[in-house]
């Protein structure tokens, strides 16, 4: 059941080489949209060992462009480890010497789990734009089935940043008896109009690309690389803070000159960086998945079915909560986290909250920041001893 782990790659604190696994589910999953999905596959990785009492399992819920590969390396040749390697590994806050960590690619994703790039059994062609729309709750229900498959009755903690934090909160409401601790990082109970607006720009960029072909680009052997790249560029700006961009790029030039007497085109460092990010992303991510994920973000509203009352919603939870925000995060600002905390307090739920001083904007939740790391580690110690 556990992933093969070796020590051949990585420094101290790495889970080493990991291999993804695939779980196939034949039983139909009824989705929030009313449609049924079957069969479907979830690709996932695990780190650490499940204890005999099966009480040390931790679920990692990924954000918009995340996937199952959260820690360690897939091969000796990998340049970069998994996306949350700073926080998952032996001796790290999510300590794999203590916890059995499960990290999956969500349904609708494009890294191995069933999604728009998978073959629609009904047509024999890729799902593309016909893949059913998903909500955070659909992911939670599919994750619960994965938990069943792995023999995990209750998670010691469900942890997520950003869109992942939304899933973690939904877990606490949908399966209160299966969550002991809920860790919500740089997240919100629902997106603001500004936030939805940024997502709409991203979708519009993708859909306006002629190569998008109404979402059937795979059938046409094309890719909306321009549109997806542009979507990523916009998104990327919103994940950073003004200060972080100033510190990283300033007004430094990559080429050309601003001296008088020159007509050369000038390229700022930030321009070349954004283009690089855009083109990297458009080569590795699926446009339909991006649209699906941003819609799930937009539609998420924790308290909608609880009379729009977050306090009433959180009364259904039975777990303890850790909520963390970052001072310069303007995409999921500390105000949004405070709303979560206030609702939890009013609902009488145990909660710990910290606003971490950090320059990195929304991306801070992925970064090595000493205060964040120490607080997270201290809380996870407690998760392990509860």
């Amino acid at each position, binding site marked *: 059941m556990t992933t093969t782990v070796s020590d051949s790659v990585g420094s101290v604190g790495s889970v080493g080489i990991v291999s993804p696994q695939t779980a196939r589910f034949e039983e139909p999953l009824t989705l929030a949209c009313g449609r049924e999905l079957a069969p479907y596959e979830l690709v996932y990785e695990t780190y650490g060992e499940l204890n005999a009492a099966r009480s040390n399992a931790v679920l990692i819920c990924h954000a918009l462009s995340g996937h199952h590969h959260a820690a360690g390396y897939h091969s000796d040749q990998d340049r970069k480890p998994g996306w949350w390697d700073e926080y998952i590994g032996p001796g790290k806050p999510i300590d794999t010497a203590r916890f059995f960590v499960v990290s999956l690619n969500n349904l609708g994703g494009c890294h191995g789990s069933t999604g728009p790039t998978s073959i629609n059994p009904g047509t024999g062609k890729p799902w593309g734009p016909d893949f059913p729309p998903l909500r955070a709750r659909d992911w939670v229900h599919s994750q619960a089935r994965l938990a069943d498959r792995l023999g995990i009755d209750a998670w010691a903690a469900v942890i997520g940043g950003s869109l992942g934090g939304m899933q973690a909160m939904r877990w606490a409401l949908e399966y209160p008896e299966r969550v002991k601790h809920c860790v919500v990082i740089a997240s919100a109970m629902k997106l603001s109009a500004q936030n939805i607006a940024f997502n709409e720009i991203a979708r519009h960029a993708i859909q306006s690309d002629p190569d998008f072909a109404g979402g059937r680009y795979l059938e046409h052997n094309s890719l909306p690389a321009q549109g997806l790249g542009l979507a990523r560029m916009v998104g990327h700006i919103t994940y950073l803070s003004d200060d972080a961009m100033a510190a990283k790029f300033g007004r430094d030039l990559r080429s050309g000159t601003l001296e008088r007497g020159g007509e050369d085109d000038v390229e700022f460092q930030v321009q070349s960086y954004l283009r690089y990010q855009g083109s990297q992303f458009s080569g590795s991510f699926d446009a339909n998945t991006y649209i699906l994920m941003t819609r799930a973000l937009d539609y998420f509203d924790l308290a909608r079915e609880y009379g729009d009352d977050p306090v009433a919603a959180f009364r259904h939870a039975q777990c*303890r909560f850790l909520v963390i925000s970052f001072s310069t995060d303007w995409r999921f600002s500390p105000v949004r986290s*405070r709303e979560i*905390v*206030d609702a939890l*307090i*009013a609902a*009488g739920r*145990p*909660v*710990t*909250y*910290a*606003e971490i*001083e950090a320059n990195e904007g929304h991306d801070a939740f992925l970064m090595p920041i000493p*205060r964040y790391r*120490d*607080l997270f580690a*201290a*809380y996870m*110690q*407690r998760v392990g*001893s509860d």
Partner: protein
Amino acid sequence: MRLDLTRIQPWIAPGSRVLDLGCGGGEFLQRLQHERQVRGMGLEIDPDNITAAVARGLDVVEQNMDEGLGNFPDQSFDTVVMAHALQAVHYPDRVLDEMLRIGREGIVTFPNFGHWRCRLYLGTRGRMPVSKFMPYTWYDTPNIHFCTVQDFEALCRDKGIRILDREMVGNTERKPLLAGAWPNLFAVTAIYRLSR
């Protein structure tokens, strides 16, 4: 543990809900959890203290009392404690009101500025007192609202706050005879149990 906190402990009912305003590193709440099985929550603004309190297994919320406590529902705690923070908040009177709105009872401790040493220091040197207990200069101090035992009791009278109990702590752990008889002059620290 500080003397004032030792004195408070008997006033906390076993198994009750306790909110500690300015909980520091959580030493007091942790002791209450161990010895009186309270369900505790702390408020704190210092990052290192917050991490220390979380490491003690406590629930701590990063929140500045001076920006209000309106997010805590009426009567949602049995006891709201504020130890050695009254003199550091912007509106001590409003915080007292909030404590007794959120909690059935409030417990407050503060350094008594009417202590004879303060008076002697001010009277003979003509300068604001600086001591082991009040180590800050007047211009660079978190303590912006010093008061005396009499000042505090006058405020309680004005606000209609009932003083259920009061304890005075002198210089030593011995029973404070002088501080008991003449608290305004001899109490180093004043401790009050309050309700509406």
